[in-house]
């Protein structure tokens, strides 16, 4: 079994807030991240898949194909977007990095080629903050 990782990146705006709470409560819980008019990040996305190298190619997966799948199903939907407003797969969810990683997993996993298994979605919100989601 070999783990293979493709790194992509996108920029997006978001804010953290709970619509069931008033402004003060949101600011108390989410601090500056609750700023009404949004803020934003350069997200770095690490997609790790696992599998055995194909005997004919030596590849777990053709990384060019993996890159195109990530671009089509994830990057095209989130890059230069407002995560709270513009992204269909985040509708009705809090746009935390945790939830975004889960959303990206669900976007991508159905489209991977046979015999290639998604292992980890690792998502950096800033160079110092990241989350990992393993699908369970």
């Amino acid at each position, binding site marked *: 079994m070999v783990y293979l990782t493709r790194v992509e990146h996108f920029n997006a705006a978001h804010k953290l807030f709970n619509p069931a709470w008033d402004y003060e409560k949101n600011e108390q819980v989410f601090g500056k991240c609750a700023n009404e008019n949004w803020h934003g990040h350069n997200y770095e996305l690490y997609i790790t898949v696992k599998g055995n190298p194909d005997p004919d190619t030596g590849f777990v997966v053709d990384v060019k194909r993996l890159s195109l799948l990530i671009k089509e199903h994830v990057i095209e939907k989130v890059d*230069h977007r407002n995560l709270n407003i513009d992204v269909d797969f985040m509708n009705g969810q809090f746009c935390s990095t945790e939830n975004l990683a889960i959303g990206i997993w669900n976007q991508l996993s159905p489209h991977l080629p046979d015999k290639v298994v998604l292992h980890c979605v690792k998502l950096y919100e800033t160079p110092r903050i990241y989350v990992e989601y393993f699908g369970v």
Partner: protein
Amino acid sequence: MNKKVAVFRREHFNAAHRLFNPDWDDATNTDVFGKCALPNYHGHNYELEVKVVGEPDPKTGFVMDLKKLSDLIETEILGRFDHKNLNLDTEAFKNLNPTAENIAIVIHDLLRPHIDEKMDLQIRLYETPRNFVEYPA
């Protein structure tokens, strides 16, 4: 003998913005600014490097006390821009397109009055890890 030394302080802030020219229609803005013109904003982790150049003070050995520079950046820059929408939440970009170029000029002009005029000041601003600008050039 020239004993000028450059000292640097690195800081960072996150902000939303969009690039557009209000004098142009949507098609022209999209043509020029691409995805950066999308109406609901996007955002960046900005990395800021502030460079001060001068001769060390003989009494302290400092070009500039970096703690004071840090506090100055915190007050003048991060307090204004961190976790804000540059287009909507800041005076500086009410009527100025918040490109990395313009942000660097604005940061320079906000800091300049607070730094000894004998010192040179230069701003380097990273909008992404691969896109950055410097002012003055």
